[in-house]
């Protein structure tokens, strides 16, 4: 098993991955926790939260790259899976603080002022962490399985699939917006207090969540890397490039597409679950079709079908957004817009592709996914 794992990257690449991991899970927390506040090297708390958020976005981007970059299926529903994972986590956080809301009721606050007398059945069980983890994985996965089954079985692909998933996104957003649905309506779930007994306001807990996000991202990356390096990865790329040839070679593409769609949904759900305790709110606007489109853009900016590109893209776009919205509040949309147009026109392979060009390396070798690794 370990030898298989080792084969995913060259030794050099492993060293880089390792050092980046150390930077992320060791150096950054130390700079925040151990360095005195007036030092130049001190990292303020808000940056930890920000980085944690970016890591969650990077995880979604990774999922998006699996489904879009590798398999050529542009799903505009990743935001939904992300939110579902987030809602599951949010429901757990609401349940564990029962009795501490403003009304001191066992019910979440919004239920109290909507005059609900008892917890709806679909809220049961969320006081257990293990149950929540199960739901975080199962619900996005099952939804993807069902939607995917119907869509792929009817041979819906390309633009049609994008639009069907967009319709799903929009419908679910409206559904969650309703107050009667029982997920807090427009406000969603917010004002969380504790996770697994730790106060969410505690800086140390934030660092902990950040480190967990980084590790989950690392593991997910390796998982995706393993998949793309296996024959399954080549079948997926085959589906992207010449689906009929794959079918006439005897592969049931339905199963393959379902696998990758479900995997991407689960990864997105996990990202959402990690995101919620760090940003402190989950509400239906996360399901806006625009958000899902943006996720595709992160991947495009970073470079499709490279995994690393997805992570870089998510970081880059969000960092830019974060910075521009303060530095140029009136003009930041221009920067963002130009960035998207520029990437599609001049960097069809994203930043990673640009880096490769800058390094004056001819891109040959097994696949674009090997761009970083081998030639």
């Amino acid at each position, binding site marked *: 098993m370990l030898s298989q794992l080792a084969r995913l990257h*060259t*030794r*050099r690449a492993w060293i*880089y991955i390792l050092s*980046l991991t150390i*930077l992320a899970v060791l150096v*950054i927390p130390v*700079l925040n926790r151990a360095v005195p506040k007036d030092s*130049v090297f001190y*990292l*303020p*708390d*808000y*940056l930890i*939260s*920000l980085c944690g958020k970016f890591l969650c976005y990077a995880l979604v981007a990774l999922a998006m790259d699996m489904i879009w970059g590798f398999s050529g299926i542009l799903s505009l529903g990743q935001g939904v899976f992300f939110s579902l994972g987030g809602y599951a986590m949010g429901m757990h956080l609401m349940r564990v603080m029962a009795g501490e809301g*403003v*009304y001191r*009721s066992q019910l979440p606050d919004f239920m*109290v*002022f*909507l*005059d609900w007398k008892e917890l709806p059945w679909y809220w049961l069980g969320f006081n257990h962490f293990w149950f929540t983890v199960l739901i975080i994985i199962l619900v996005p996965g099952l939804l993807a399985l069902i939607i995917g089954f119907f869509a792929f079985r009817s041979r819906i692909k390309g633009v049609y699939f994008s639009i069907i998933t967009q319709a799903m996104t929009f419908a679910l957003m409206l559904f969650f*917006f309703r*107050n009667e649905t029982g997920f807090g*309506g*427009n*406000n*969603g779930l*917010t*004002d*969380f207090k504790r996770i697994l007994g730790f106060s*969410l*306001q505690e800086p140390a807990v934030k660092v902990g969540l950040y480190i967990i996000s980084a590790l989950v991202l690392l593991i997910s990356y390796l998982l995706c890397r393993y998949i793309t390096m296996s024959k399954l990865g080549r079948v997926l790329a085959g589906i992207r490039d010449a689906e009929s040839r794959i079918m006439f070679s005897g592969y049931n593409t339905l199963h393959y597409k379902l696998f990758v769609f479900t995997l991407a949904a689960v990864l997105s759900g996990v990202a959402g679950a990690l995101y919620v305790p760090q*940003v*402190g*709110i989950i*509400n239906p*606007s*996360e399901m806006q079709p625009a958000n899902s489109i943006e996720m595709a853009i992160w991947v495009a900016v970073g470079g499709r079908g490279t995994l*690393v590109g997805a992570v*870089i893209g998510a970081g*880059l776009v969000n*960092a830019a957004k*974060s910075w521009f*919205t*303060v530095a140029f*509040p*009136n003009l*930041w*949309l221009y920067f963002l817009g130009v960035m998207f147009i520029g990437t599609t026109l001049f960097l069809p392979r994203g930043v*990673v592709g*640009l*880096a*490769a060009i800058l*390094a004056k*390396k001819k891109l040959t070798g097994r696949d674009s996914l090997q761009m*970083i*690794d*081998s030639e």
Partner: protein
Amino acid sequence: MTRKHLPSIFILITMSLLLLTGPAIQAVKAEDTIKVGILHSLSGTMAISETSLKDVALMTIEEINQRGGLLGKKIEPVVVDPASNWPLFAEKARELIDKHKVAAVFGCWTSVSRKSVLPVFEELNGLLFYPVQYEGEECSNNVFYTGAAPNQQAIPAVEYLMSKEGGGAKRFVLLGTDYVYPRTTNKILRAFLHAKGITDADIMETYTPFGHSDYQTIVTSIKDFSAAKKTAVISTINGDSNVPFYKELANRGIKAENIPVVAFSVGEEELRGIDTKPLVGHLAAWNYFMSIDTKENKEFIKKWQDYVKKHNLPGGDKRVTNDPMEATYIGINMWAQSVIQAGTTDVNAVRQAMGYQKVKAPCGFDISMDAKNHHLHKPVFIGEIRADGQFDIVWKTPGPIRAEAWSPYIPDSAKKVADWTYPWVCGNCTAPKYK
């Protein structure tokens, strides 16, 4: 093999460096100003309402700076754009307090944005001035609410509609956009109407999704509902949906004399986007109208118009003032007074000084801050829409009334006390707490 990885690794490292050092460099800059944060959406769906608040906040700060600033320092506004994205509100709030070390933040419009930033302000002990009418049911030590609570807007309006003068309505349509402000307000109103002897059969409650633009069916059902008794519509429709609603109403020939509509989210700014001639007589309840005829208001309007002209803001001489703008203006001035009184921008000191602070507001009254529940005492005005997009004030309270942060009409909330003064020090408890 080694150099082949360089490009991507390089980018990763540059990125993290940028992230790490960028803010650090800025933080080193010497502090010779008092920074305040302006946290209003300048893009996205809420930009339509919030942009004016950013402008008026900048105007007020400029005015204070021209008078010489505070404590010998100039105020430096830090404007950020949370882009109508609620988690981004929380992120920006954290950044404003943690990185920019702002003394106070003026911002938010929607309830969800306020809910999103609230934990941040409580965690980092920041100060938020929230300038918009809202549903109540909240009271934080770190927030000063300068907009209206439901008892300062919704209940007087309904009382007026039920009075002989207001048309003596016997049936009510509670029409709103499906989110927390309309839901809570309508819940309070329903309880209030029950108390006034109106049964559920005479109350119709309908909600539409955000951005709803097709009101044909709803207007028909309002019309049918109104067939039995004198009916009034209480609209908590939010933002953009007001225009299609009013247009449908006007084109169907429903006039204010027959079915008056009183709105809590429609002011001068919103009416700018509507042809108001067919809407004459429909109502709005606010704590301020641009048409209020006082010296202070004339000055305020003049300042605003000069500011718009000077900075060449879009809209030009068509720009109007409205209630949340006045609330923003009051909020900043009150904060400035408190800073002077406290002699520092320290949050705890300023918070203490804020209680009982008084400002002569454009609406013509002395508006004061309630030290106990952090809400303003405000007068209530009811205006009828005129053909020119302004309001005729047809009713007003004799003086400012106190806000009820916790509505007495909701059983769970009636027990609550909001009192941030010693010995209570608690915004939502039933027995004193000490801190």
